[in-house]
């Protein structure tokens, strides 16, 4: 009777009025009560013109597509992508200019997905234990700490630095026409002034830490884009930090500003680690960031020891020796690339 095997892309363009009539018939036959008279009338129309036949069969083809899918699940899947605010829907309406917006969304989306790939592809990197200073096009001085990876994207309307891993300290050159923004997967730190530190902390919580040495910085969370349909349900949170203040944030949460020793936090940029009464295991974990060799120790055994002082970051072995001079611990090298700290 009616064929169901027409290929989709045919060259014939059928007049709109014929398609409208075909839709009319299709809906009537599929969704409404029909009489024998209806069927006869339909057959007559169907056979009258090859274009009637073609238009109708195409509609049958489209209609039939739903047959092989689980209906309830299909509805869930389709409604999820069709809901307003969905980036693909915006594309259909606005065309090329929004394509760029979508591409930006995708790149931020992918940033959520795979930091290792972004780290791998980054243009500016430091290996473990190394530090580097870059002077940017606008005169800003960007210092990279150990094991850091970032990209610099300056444009006419903004100065963007994407930090994928590690820590930077920046002295921002004044440019009223372009804000300087350091972005991580968690959010942005935007400079209205001159000197601040940004660190991506990769522990169980995975957060970004900002410390301001001079002037003002505005930090904002970037809500996770992992669930595109939920795009509208996450709002960003912003706070303003003054000199001597710091915060930590994840994509969903911003800590309130707290008073911190910004100079100490940014001390690495002058090659030193300033410690104020910290537990030894924490200090060792921090030193590990700068050491290719694995620093091993029993956390419980050393937990009660506290450290204060200034340690050189350019020579970790030397720093550990300084510590063993202050505390009842000994430093040994049981094998290549392993440094063991134990009770004396």
């Amino acid at each position, binding site marked *: 009777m009616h064929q169901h095997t027409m290929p*989709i*892309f*045919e060259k014939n*363009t*059928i007049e709109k009025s014929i*398609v*409208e009539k075909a*839709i*009319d018939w*299709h*809906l009537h036959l599929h*969704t*409404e009560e029909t009489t024998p008279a209806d069927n006869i009338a339909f057959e007559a129309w169907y056979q009258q013109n090859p274009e009637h036949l073609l*238009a109708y069969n*195409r*509609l049958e083809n*489209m*209609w039939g*597509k*739903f047959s*092989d*899918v*689980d*209906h*309830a*699940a*299909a*509805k*869930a*899947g*389709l*409604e*999820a*992508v*069709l*809901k*307003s605010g969905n*980036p*693909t*829907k915006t*594309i*259909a*309406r606005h065309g090329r200019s929004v*394509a760029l917006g*979508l*591409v930006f969304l*995708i*790149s931020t*989306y*992918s*940033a959520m*997905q*795979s*930091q290792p*790939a*972004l780290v791998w*592809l980054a243009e500016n990197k430091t290996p473990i234990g190394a530090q580097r200073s870059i002077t940017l096009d606008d005169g800003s001085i960007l210092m990279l700490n150990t094991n850091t990876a970032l990209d610099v994207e300056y444009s006419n309307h903004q100065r963007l630095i994407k930090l994928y891993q590690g820590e930077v300290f920046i002295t921002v050159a004044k440019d009223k026409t372009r804000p300087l923004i350091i972005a991580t997967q968690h959010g942005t730190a935007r400079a209205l002034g001159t000197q601040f530190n940004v660190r991506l902390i990769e522990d169980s919580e995975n957060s970004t830490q900002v410390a301001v040495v001079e002037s003002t910085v505005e930090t904002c969370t970037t809500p996770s884009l992992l669930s*595109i*349909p939920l795009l509208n349900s996450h709002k960003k949170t912003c706070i303003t930090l003054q000199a001597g203040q710091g915060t930590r944030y994840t994509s969903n949460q911003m800590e309130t500003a707290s008073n911190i020793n910004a100079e100490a936090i940014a001390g690495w940029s002058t090659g030193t680690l300033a410690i104020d009464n910290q537990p030894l295991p924490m200090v060792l974990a921090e030193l590990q960031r700068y050491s290719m060799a694995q620093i091993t120790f029993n956390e419980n055994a050393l937990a009660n020891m506290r450290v204060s002082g200034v340690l050189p970051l350019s020579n970790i072995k030397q720093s550990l020796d300084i510590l063993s001079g202050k505390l009842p611990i000994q430093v040994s090298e049981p094998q290549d690339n392993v440094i063991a700290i134990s009770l004396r």
Partner: protein
Amino acid sequence: MINAKAFQPDNLDISNIGDLYATNHRWLVGWLYQKLGCSFDAADLAQDTFIKIAHLGNMSTIKTPRAYLTTTATRLMIDLVRKRNIEQHYLEALCLSQAHDFVASPQQIKEAVETLNEIAALLEGLPEKVYRAFLMCRLDGLSYAQIANELGVSTSMVKQYIARAMMHCYQAAYQPSAA
């Protein structure tokens, strides 16, 4: 993802596509890698982009190859993102659904997602009430009266909505506008 059959299309212009590929393939993979953050996706999409362009035949009209490549690749990315989205929700709904008459095989699920992706592309651009009316009719099997009740409109409006949805899909499928 990479369809082996696609390597022997009928009108593949080998000489021109070869140059385009040699000059731009690595660059395109890198560009896609930046966007997607996944090496497998980037490699697959780069291949699909060249295959799609190869079917056009005449390369000489392309003045700016990289812009052309990224435009094509972006469309494929949109498609991929949408398909992944559909898949996620389809699978969730299958898990939650009460009807356990059959267990869908991975192949069935893959085909269903492909089909839904095609349908979603056709329905894109329609206002919410219009596509909802269409889906309630076709997927839930509701009557015009029931749909009218749900959407808060008249039954004649419902029929108009569904007809409009079908026209929209028809035009998207059979009269693709110049991109």
